[in-house]
């Protein structure tokens, strides 16, 4: 049993879960206004999808029988970490007002979590190099 | 003369009564000599070894190793003496679990503030004690007899004049005991003086001289 892939997979699973549910609960985007839905709302929804996939990749890496498969899954999770960071900055963005919660709280939280996911993926690629099982 | 012990005493107080753990002991050893000291536990033989190794200060008397007196040596000088002149194999299992066998043997080299390569010498020693193939292993993979060989190799890493062993076969089975004794015999034949204390009678057959320790007094065994 390879302990590294188990630990890294678990870390990725937690990061993915936080990315998915964070924008809706822990570090929420601005309140939803049906008359004038803001960018941050849709950004939060898309992170729900990205985070869920990252979490699944983490789970897969924990359960996978081969270290090389884990390595690939972790790498994919790391790449999705980049997407996590791009959504609130370049691809969708957040609200304009610098003091809105989605700017002060949700975006930095997603950046930190995304960076952590990238780091976890890179660590997985590095640590699991050459291991067969 | 490799070892000269003259009128050595170590006094302790038990309750209010002073008593001699080592009582006016004298002993000399030459190059290549193999001496066994036997005695019951509490007879003072471990105290004697610790005095010789400079780990304890004697109450009276003198110890000379390779001509140099231990009296008045400071910590640095005593440490250097232990590192270079005297190889000490303590009682029990003392191989460090977090170092490989090779690193265990190399360890004394670095306590003498030396630099440079040490692996070749350590490998030679492991070959000499018959476990060259285990150099890269961790101690937990080794048997009791193999661990004892590691301790012996380690004791000889930087010192070849005098090898001191405290009950080297205490927890080994008879066959392994015999192998270790054969090894020590060989080491003595190659020129190193070997001093060993034990309470097992059957191992004494390996010594050139067998001495008996009783209540701190050392006498030739009859």
């Amino acid at each position, binding site marked *: 049993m390879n302990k590294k892939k188990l630990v890294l997979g678990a870390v990725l699973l937690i990061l993915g879960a936080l990315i998915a549910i964070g924008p809706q609960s822990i570090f929420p985007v601005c309140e939803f206004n049906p008359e004038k839905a803001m960018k941050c709302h849709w950004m939060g929804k898309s992170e729900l999808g990205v985070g869920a996939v990252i979490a699944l990749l983490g789970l897969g890496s924990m359960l996978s029988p081969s270290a090389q498969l884990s390595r690939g899954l972790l790498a994919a999770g790391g790449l999705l970490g980049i997407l996590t960071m791009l959504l609130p900055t370049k691809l969708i963005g957040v609200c304009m007002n610098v003091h809105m919660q989605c700017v002060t709280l949700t975006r*930095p939280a997603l950046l930190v979590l995304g960076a952590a996911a990238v780091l976890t993926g890179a660590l997985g690629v590095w640590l699991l190099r050459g291991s067969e099982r | 003369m490799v070892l000269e012990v003259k009128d050595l005493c170590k006094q302790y107080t038990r309750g209010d009564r002073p008593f001699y753990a080592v009582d006016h002991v004298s002993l000399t050893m030459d190059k290549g000599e193999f001496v066994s000291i036997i005695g019951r536990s509490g007879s003072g033989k471990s105290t004697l070894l610790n005095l010789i190794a400079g780990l304890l200060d004697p109450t009276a008397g003198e110890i000379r190793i390779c001509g140099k007196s231990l009296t008045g040596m400071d910590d640095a000088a005593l440490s250097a003496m232990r590192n270079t002149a005297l190889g000490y194999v303590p009682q029990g299992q003392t191989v460090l679990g977090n170092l490989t066998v090779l690193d265990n043997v190399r360890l004394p080299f670095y*306590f003498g503030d030396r630099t440079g390569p040490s*692996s070749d010498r350590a490998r030679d020693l492991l070959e000499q004690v018959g476990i060259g193939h285990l150099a890269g292993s961790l101690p937990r993979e080794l048997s009791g007899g193999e661990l004892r060989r590691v301790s012996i190799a380690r004791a000889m890493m930087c010192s070849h004049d005098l090898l001191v062993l405290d009950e080297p076969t205490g927890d080994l089975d008879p066959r392994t005991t015999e192998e270790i004794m054969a090894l020590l015999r060989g080491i003595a034949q190659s020129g190193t003086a070997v001093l060993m204390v034990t309470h097992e009678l059957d191992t004494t057959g390996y010594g050139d001289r067998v001495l008996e320790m009783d209540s701190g007094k050392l006498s030739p065994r009859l």
Partner: protein
Amino acid sequence: MTEKALSNHRLALLNLQRKPFRTWALLAVVALLAFVLFGGSVMIRSLENGIEGLQARLGADIVVVPEGYDQDLAGVMIHGEPTYFFMDKDVLAQVQSCEAVEIASPQFYLASLNAECCGSSVPIIGFDPESDFTVQPWITEQYSKSLDRGQIIVGSDIVAQNDGTVLFFGRNYEVAARLERTGTGADVSCFTTMETIEDLYRDAREKGAYFKQGVTYENSISSIMVRVRDGFSLTQAAGQIRRATEGKVEIVQTQRMIDSVGGSLQGVAGGLYIIAGVFWLLALALLSIVFSVTANERKKEFALFRILGATRRRLSRLILREAFYISLGGGVLGVLLAALAVFPFSVYIGDRLGMPYLLPGMGEILLILCGSLLLSAACGPLASAHAARKISRAETYHTMREGE
């Protein structure tokens, strides 16, 4: 095969590796300490910075506002909360007539509409360029020309449209300059001259913004910034203004406003320093206990080192080094985590604290970083000093036997 020397460095690392749980637990303790030290210090300094910014930003000794609006003034100055409040323009002449008043400069406050500009309503502050002594001195740091009609200076957090204008009441205004961050309400405020305010006022009226009855641009002002003449005390000046205006206004002494914010800051700062101190002592105590317990467990190992020729000095250095690695590693870890909390979320923290909050400059942050690292890294060697002394003094013969 390259061989690594078995230096104290390597032996210490190997020992730490051998007990991963103990190592990580101790790392976590020191990391927590470093987190509190670094994060706490940065927060305290940011708050102090914010107060200093507020002081510089206010500039006036006394601010005269309509009766009952002193809290609103604080809201605008500290948090940038938009408000409307007006008083009769005659008050200006009354205030100017006081002997103790050196300069009295009027300001006119508007609030933008929610849907325009910045996603939420922001204060627009109009000043009189002739008499103004509070806004222009720090505007000139960014913008040295005088403002034309239709030009606006914006706070650091106001987002302009792509063409460099901001939209107020259906009309675009050119952004002439952007102010540096102050951590105060100025960051979300806009500043302009009275001429431009006139245009804004008319548009606001047209768009249906609510003004109290009788309030017009011509006969109203929101506040008067007062500089007290040398030789007069604030109390004297306030007394004179109260008499001249017959008590129909609120006279706000800005230093008191700052003190009321700064006073609570001192409580917070003191509390944080006490917590940091308690943490330091706790970490020290915890580490001391763990080090002396493990030193006891490892007596046999240390005795062996002595037997193999290690000097007492060498032994105590090995113990100190091991402890140092733990505390340094924990310190780096804690500072890193604190940095991840304090820097990306600085605006959020400031908003939640509801106090002026401005991160210190790079140099000062580095200074705090070094200090926090030093204090956490010192923790290990200090905590293990006793164990190191004891172990290296112990008679080897006894430690060898006790360890069995």
